[in-house]
């Protein structure tokens, strides 16, 4: 199944286009539309965007490479992205990441075999005063420690098992 915009989405993109003087300004909002719906933006999707919107593929690819929140491949249902920047590091994010890797049995950048969890890094989440912190999906989790992490993962596992 390949990604496609609905006619309404296309209309809203065209509306946006009429407000900017350089089409490249559409790159970010359009990528968000794809990412929100599908969880990632693959090369096929970029080619679709290029055809559909007439914006060069390389601009999408550059943005995806630059911004940590965009995924270029399918991820787990819950994406844990640890802030890798200095404040979080000083407050022990490296150890927490190791702990989490052990807990899930996967390494940074990998997805658990049940497809539930992916582990990743993020640039500074702007939450330094509550470091260490991470994103789970689009939700921020602050002042992390081993207990908090463990109970979050447990909770998610239970929720998904009971369904």
């Amino acid at each position, binding site marked *: 199944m390949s990604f496609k915009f609905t006619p309404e989405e296309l209309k809203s993109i065209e509306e946006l286009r009429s407000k900017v003087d350089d089409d490249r300004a559409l790159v970010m909002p359009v990528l968000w539309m794809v990412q929100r719906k599908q969880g990632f933006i693959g090369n096929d999707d*970029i080619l679709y965007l290029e055809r559909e919107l007439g914006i*060069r593929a*390389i*601009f999408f690819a*550059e943005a995806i*490479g630059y911004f940590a929140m965009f995924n270029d491949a399918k991820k787990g249902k819950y994406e844990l992205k640890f802030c890798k920047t200095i404040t979080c590091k000083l407050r022990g994010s490296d150890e927490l990441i190791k702990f989490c890797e052990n807990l899930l049995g996967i390494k940074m950048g990998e997805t658990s075999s049940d497809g539930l969890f992916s582990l990743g890094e993020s640039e500074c989440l702007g939450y330094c005063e509550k470091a260490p912190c991470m994103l789970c999906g689009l939700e921020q989790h602050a002042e992390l420690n081993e207990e908090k992490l463990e109970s979050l993962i447990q909770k998610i596992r239970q929720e998904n098992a009971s369904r």
Partner: protein
Amino acid sequence: MVEIIVDSEKFQVDENGNLITELKKHGIEIPHFCYHEALGVSGNCRMCLIEVVGQKRPQIACDTPISAGMEIKINSELTRKVQKGLLEMEFINHPLDCPTCDQAGECSLQEYYMKFDKEGSRVAVADKVKKHKREDFGSNVIHDEERCVLCRRCVRFTQICSKTYELGIGGRGEHSKIMLFNDQKINNPYAGNIVDICPVGAMTSADFRFKRRVWHLKTTEAICQGCERGCALSVDSDKPKYENEQIYRFRARFDESVNGHFICDFGRYSYKFEQLIEPKNDNALLNLKDELKANLSKFDVLVTSSLSTEEMSAAIKFAKSFGANLYGYDDFRDESFCDSEGLKLRYPNKTANKKGLEHLQTSTDLTHIKDRVIVFHLGDKFELNLKNPTFIMPRKQADIICASAYHRDGHTINCDGILRFSKAVLSPVAPSIEQIIAYLMDEKEAK
């Protein structure tokens, strides 16, 4: 024009110009990687940081507007300190092997290091970050990620000049690298320029790499014979031991009115057909000479638009003295050799002097041309419905081999009517068309 002060000396510069370009005209160099006259300001490399009097911090020269009376210091302690710092940053993970790098001798990084830095490394070789080497980017371009300074010139070339958008920067910060989208290789007729504009050894030419160290090369200014545009070239040649002199590469030479900073790939690699060929002409030339003498006015002469203006006028003289008719041939059109996008340098007539031939007003209608024809041509053999032609060309299939266009001096007139001079790159082994004609007319010995 306004007056500015550079290290206490006064200079007249164009206030709408760019500081780096304007000062270059006065022989003053401000080190830079990302700025390029054809690509404009990018402002990302910071190599051009200089002290500007009255400003709290050093400013990037490439993006500092020129104003009357401004004062800059390009040899001050502060400027030097910034340059050293910048170079140290560039060198942290850069390979430490200029002697084996293909760019050595024409590398900005190497030059700036020798000029402004000369510091030892503070990073242990074992700690160096290793990256991809020898990535084939397509169209003869080989990328070496380790040497890249991320100036983005190559990326901007594909966006501004070729308009093909093959390259981008992937990742961010220390993970940044030049990338292709979806492994789609560079595919445009101007790709070779990417190698020329890369200021370091990160984009190298699959065709030229490791063939020759550049300081051995002799550079001659010439005009490309690939098409009627007549782009300005730098021709690099050398004489390897025990061998004939050889052309190793063509590079673009700046000519504002014709090709700007660039050339097309067809022209760039056309040097391969222009090497010297040892002639085995002696008998053929002698026979021709005897035949012509015995058969006055029984033959015609055909010149093509590949000849220089001098060669054409020699042919006119030649035809006249034998009572022969002179014909011109300029049908070397290749409609696919023409661009509607990008640099638009390629011009469908693939000889260099069509306009020159037009000036001579020779007939190009060959219906009444005689059966016996002497053809003077520089380039590949072409099909002509002639019964008994003698081809005088710089190619193996020729009846008589002459020197190629890069082995003789000559003028051409390009598609815009611009007359320019192409200098002989090396002394020919074969005689030039002019020498052959002089010999046939009994004026000189053909060498």
